[in-house]
């Protein structure tokens, strides 16, 4: 049984001009100890998927369909107070900008101890010991002294380490990291990713790693989900996604894989832009930009189809018409 199983997840925003469907039938799973990379252009729905899983969609956004299972039991229909007990304890979250994710008025120790004691039955003193241990583990020097320091007394990279400690201090089985390095200095990004990777391995934590950086995905993830316009375009093992992508959109993204020498922050520039939620074309959402588009793409929408080692939402892989991957050359 997968640790997390997302089935047919649909998220909608009711607006004055009708209902916006921001996620449309997203399905994927994450195994225990696995790192799933999630990539896609801005607005593809990556953050929304994470928010839906931990039950923190901003109203009026709501889960309109599908199921989310954590260790086999549904969590999408839980009450807020039940969800609260899951957040931090079974699913942790790491946000993008460490300069704004820590409460400036509380010492980091206080924030850690509160988080620990919210989820674990520990005395203040034991929680403090645990907090110091976590700070050491994320690489804060002189943790025992610095635990009483305030966020503004740490550098950006150190703050993200503290954020990671906060996300992991109650030992969740899964952590959702939403662009954990985007706001950081380039020189620190690799350290933070390495730290996350090491902690996940040591604690057997699964990671859903949302990023724009294909280089990070290639180094870190076990599997990759490529999102486009609120759906999963392709999902599969990292090696296949990177080397032999089956979906034309993924292929476009990989064209932009930055080499170590020239790291680029954003994903490849594929001609055109992702459609807005109000103007998603009929058929395959990628069809206006797709170099391989053919008649069927403009009429019928493809679901995920087996495409060799991966699954791709693309008619090129409809086994009833063409042999697998043959179209690719």
């Amino acid at each position, binding site marked *: 049984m997968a640790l997390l199983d997302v089935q047919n997840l649909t998220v909608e925003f009711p607006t004055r001009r009708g209902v916006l469907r921001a996620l449309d039938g997203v399905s994927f799973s994450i195994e225990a100890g696995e790192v799933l990379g999630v990539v896609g252009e801005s607005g593809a729905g990556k953050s929304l998927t994470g928010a839906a899983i931990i039950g923190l969609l901003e109203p009026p956004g709501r889960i309109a369909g599908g199921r989310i299972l954590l260790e086999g039991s549904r969590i999408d229909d839980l009450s807020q107070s039940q969800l609260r007990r899951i957040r931090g304890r079974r699913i942790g979250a790491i946000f993008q900008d460490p300069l704004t994710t*820590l409460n400036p*008025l509380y010492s980091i120790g206080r924030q850690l101890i509160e988080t620990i004691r919210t989820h674990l039955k520990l005395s203040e003193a034991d929680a403090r010991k645990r907090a110091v241990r976590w700070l050491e583990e994320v690489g804060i020097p002189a943790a025992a002294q610095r635990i009483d320091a305030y966020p*503004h007394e740490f550098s950006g990279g150190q703050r993200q380490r503290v954020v990671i400690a906060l996300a992991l201090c109650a030992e969740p089985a899964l952590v959702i990291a939403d662009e954990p390095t985007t706001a950081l200095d380039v020189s620190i990004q690799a350290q933070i990713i390495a730290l996350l990777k090491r902690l996940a391995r040591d604690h057997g934590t699964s990671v859903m790693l949302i990023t724009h950086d294909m280089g990070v995905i290639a180094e870190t993830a076990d599997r990759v989900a490529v999102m486009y316009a609120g759906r999963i375009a392709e999902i599969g093992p990292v090696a296949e996604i990177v080397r032999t992508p089956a979906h034309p959109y993924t292929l476009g993204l990989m064209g932009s894989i930055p080499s170590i020498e020239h790291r680029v922050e954003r994903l490849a520039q594929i001609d055109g832009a992702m459609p807005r939620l109000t103007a998603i074309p009929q058929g395959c959402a990628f069809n206006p930009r797709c170099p391989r588009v053919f008649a069927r793409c403009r009429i019928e929408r493809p679901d995920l189809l087996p495409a060799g080692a991966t699954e791709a939402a693309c008619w090129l892989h409809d086994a009833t018409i063409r042999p697998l991957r043959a179209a690719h050359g």
Partner: protein
Amino acid sequence: MPAFILSRLLQAIPVLLVVGFIAYAMFAFVGDPVQIMLGQDYTEVQRQALIHDLGLDQPFFVQYAKFMWRAVQGEFGISYRLARPVSGLIAERLPATLELSVTATVLSLAVGLPMGVYTAVYRRSWLARGFMVFSLAGISLPTFLTGILLILCFSVGLGWLPSFGRGEVVHIGAWWTTGFLTLSGIKALILPAITLGLFQMTLIMRLVRAEMLEVLRTDYIKFARARGLTDRSIKFGHALRNTMVPVITIVGLQLGMIVAFSLVTETVFQWPGMGLLFIQSVGVADIPVMSAYLLLIAVVFVVINLVVDLLYYAVDPRLRIERSSAQAGR
């Protein structure tokens, strides 16, 4: 910390000097004190003698310096109207104004703060909407109208509360009088305190609400939610504390306003405080009383500012720089 207080006090000195200058300039140039004090019949000798007594024949800056020096010692000259030392008059009236202002302040904070938090946290509830409508009324009604409406309702209509005066007061020590210790004193305080506090109360409520809504949208509140902290801790711990940082300054200044604006309320309710004294003095250009009042209000603002700074210091660790600079670094 003592250095911090000291520097704040030093910064206040120029402010007080400027206000003192204005107060003195008023004293020197508005109306002719000699004329006022002598009345109709006087000889030139009497006039010259008085000018000399008042020091009006000396250079302006000497007069200003003397004025400030005496002010520091609590001497503001003799009231033209009542022919008594101004310091004595002020001392008589100070307790009434302070008791009224403090009561209004406590009232506006004790009601305004929780209402602000409530309307932010339960934004969509009917009670919160009711509070918002009520606050609009409180903000837009002028103080004197509030006072008159309250008098009409509770004094004239229902006859529950007195419409003027301070009730029976009790003397404490040499110069303090209090209305807190008698039933009639407390009854007399209720309407003026509500009148004076209402505007500030609604202002505080709206301010707290706006700041709190802002804070509830921040990343650190989202991250606190994502860590599964309890709703109670997030709203009344993390969010409220951050709300207080901007609120403290504005509320502090507003409380200064309470003391300053008490003169309208004191006039409506014939409350025997400094504001009423000031209004009565304006009518007859009783300059010594007016300038003393002005200086006193300036001192009140300076003290409030100092308290605000100290509170800031207590709430916001980012201001406690000395400690952090020693430990900063990667």
